[in-house]
């Protein structure tokens, strides 16, 4: 099962990194002529009464317009394999580019939360006493907040400003050259929007899990012989934490980090769905758009959701495997 997880994660990472090569269209390009086109294999045929035309004008008999039954096919095309959205944007290209936002927020948010939480947790666990008490009370307070509600409130306060950074694959001309050689559409977006505020917010509401795990580890490691020995030979505390405690606490932190990437991807998609998105190339944002077409075009909301489910399943499989293999007793909030 873990292999399936690794394959899924690798697939999503590759898709995210090489989006400008893989996307069949510019994910932001609108083509209203083909809006709400179904995915390949889901085109439907129906019969419709249409006026009979002769020489470019309708035929009238006995005061009525003459009609005939004709079969109408909702077009599908391999050019838009997963269909198009309400503005005629290619769903597959948007799913491919959405992987970037999920990966950026998932990885950057987890790193930020891990760095902060681990520093606080190791310090508290190592020194004990009042430092530890303060941390544990602070983490009790954090746990009393529903993380999604706190995240919405913070994003509501700070806004969702994103930072645009140039996409090296496009700006260097690499992807455009290859695309035009292959006859694919060119003019892919030149920037990647990094939803900075969202990253900070998801880290702020999730650091406490890392602090708790790191504290527990430091607590059990500080009494070990080799830590005592290091102290006896005169190593200072910050050196001991960095060189002796941290490396031995890394395993459970890695397990937690894997699960947290999944939790943060779910949180980001929920925020985007609710309209607090730093970019509109995001799976959650696309699902909220697709919801407006739920009665006519099911695929617009379905496809990005499947992408989320597959990504999170991959991460959970790897997280479970790591946990079973390395460390049986840690927890962590699983999702939204």
């Amino acid at each position: 099962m873990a292999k399936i997880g690794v394959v899924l994660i690798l697939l999503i990472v590759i898709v995210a990194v090489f989006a400008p090569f893989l996307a069949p269209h510019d994910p932001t390009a609108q083509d209203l002529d083909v809006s709400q086109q179904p995915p390949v294999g889901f085109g439907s045929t129906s019969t419709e009464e249409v006026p009979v035309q002769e020489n470019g004008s309708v035929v009238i008999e006995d005061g009525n317009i003459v009609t005939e039954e004709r079969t109408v096919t909702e077009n599908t095309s391999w050019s838009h394999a997963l269909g198009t959205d309400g503005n005629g944007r290619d769903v597959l290209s948007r799913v491919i580019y959405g992987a970037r936002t999920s990966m950026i927020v998932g990885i950057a948010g987890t790193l930020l939360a891990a760095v902060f939480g681990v520093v606080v947790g190791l310090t508290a666990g190592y020194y004990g006493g009042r430092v530890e008490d303060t941390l544990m009370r602070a983490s009790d307070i954090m746990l009393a907040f529903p993380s999604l509600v706190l995240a919405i409130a913070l994003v509501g306060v700070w806004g969702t400003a994103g930072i645009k950074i140039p996409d090296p694959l496009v700006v260097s001309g690499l992807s455009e050259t290859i695309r035009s050689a292959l006859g694919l559409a060119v003019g892919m977006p030149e920037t990647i929007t990094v939803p900075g505020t969202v990253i900070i917010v998801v880290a702020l509401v999730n650091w406490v899990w890392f602090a708790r795990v790191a504290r527990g580890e430091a607590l059990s490691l500080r009494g070990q012989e080799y830590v005592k020995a290091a102290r006896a030979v005169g190593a200072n505390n910050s050196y001991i934490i960095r060189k002796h405690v941290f490396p031995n606490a890394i395993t459970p932190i890695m397990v937690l980090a894997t699960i947290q990437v999944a939790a943060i991807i779910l949180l980001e998609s929920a925020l985007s769905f609710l309209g607090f998105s730093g970019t509109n190339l995001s799976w959650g944002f696309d699902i909220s758009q697709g919801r407006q077409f739920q009665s006519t075009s099911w695929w617009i909301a379905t496809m990005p959701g499947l992408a989320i489910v597959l990504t999170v399943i991959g991460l959970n499989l790897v997280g479970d495997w790591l946990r079973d293999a390395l460390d049986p007793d840690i927890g962590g909030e699983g999702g939204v």
Partner: protein
Amino acid sequence: MSLARFLLRRSLQGIFVIWGVVTVVFGLRFIAPGAPENVLLPPDVSEATRQQVAAELGLDQPLYLQYFDYIVGLPVGDMGTSLVTRTPASGRVLSTLPATLELAIAATVVAIVIAIPLGVISATRRHKPADYGATLFSLVGISTPNFWLGIMLVIIFSVQIGWFPSSRRPVGIGIDAILADLVALQLEAAASGLRDWLYYITLPAITLGTYFTALITRLTRNGMLEELGEEYVRAARAKGLPETLVRYKHALRNTLIPIITVLGLQLGTLIGGAVITERVFRWPGLGTLIINSIQARDWPVVQASIIIIGVGFVVLNILVDALYTYINPQVGEN
């Protein structure tokens, strides 16, 4: 340690946690850009009017006084005035609470009724098709964002099949209305009220409950597997106790105890899930109120909502801990 002393100590800790929540939430308003009174005023208002409105709302006071006033008001339920409706913020929150509680309780019931039998079946038929099915379900269940699941359910069961409504729940359908009919002995009205209630709550309850169903299935399965390998289970079997008794009286009982604690800690996730489920189904509850209030920058209502959820979390967890101590006296001792 006696239960009373334990409860007292946990209550003091709980009050500290609630104070922390209040302080963080109070601080939230002041990191927001723009003066709070601007929410109420058109952008071209004169400075004099702006100051007058600020004074009316007490916003001209120094920060520590505003904080002090807020804290003093809390025990008597004064959580400020909604900037949008000019009514008490606590009243607005409490009026939406029943709808959210209905949804949360329905989802929890769905989860427990499905998950515990599923987890037990999965554990007692290990490596059989039923076990693989349950394991796959719980993996997919904890990996699915509930807003997307809600939309999928609407597309399948409302739009395509037409079993359930895709419209907002009308006013007047709710547990309170059913209870009122029951009290008035209008059984027919109560029955039709119950039908309507189920008609509107089924999809939202499944949407919110799926994650918890998956989670509890997984916890029950893993817990049962662990317990069934314990010495006391082997001893009970060796003694000749029927297998059903061993499984349900001994193993399942010991499995359920830690699950209760996990569920207490998941209340935050449940409320977070309710917020987003309400958005999908336009359910008239607390989540809808929170999101609307954040968008309208109606901070007193946002603050009141988060504080009331925080209080609920603290109280529920004290109750769970007390229950846990009662069931398993070793816990209270450290």
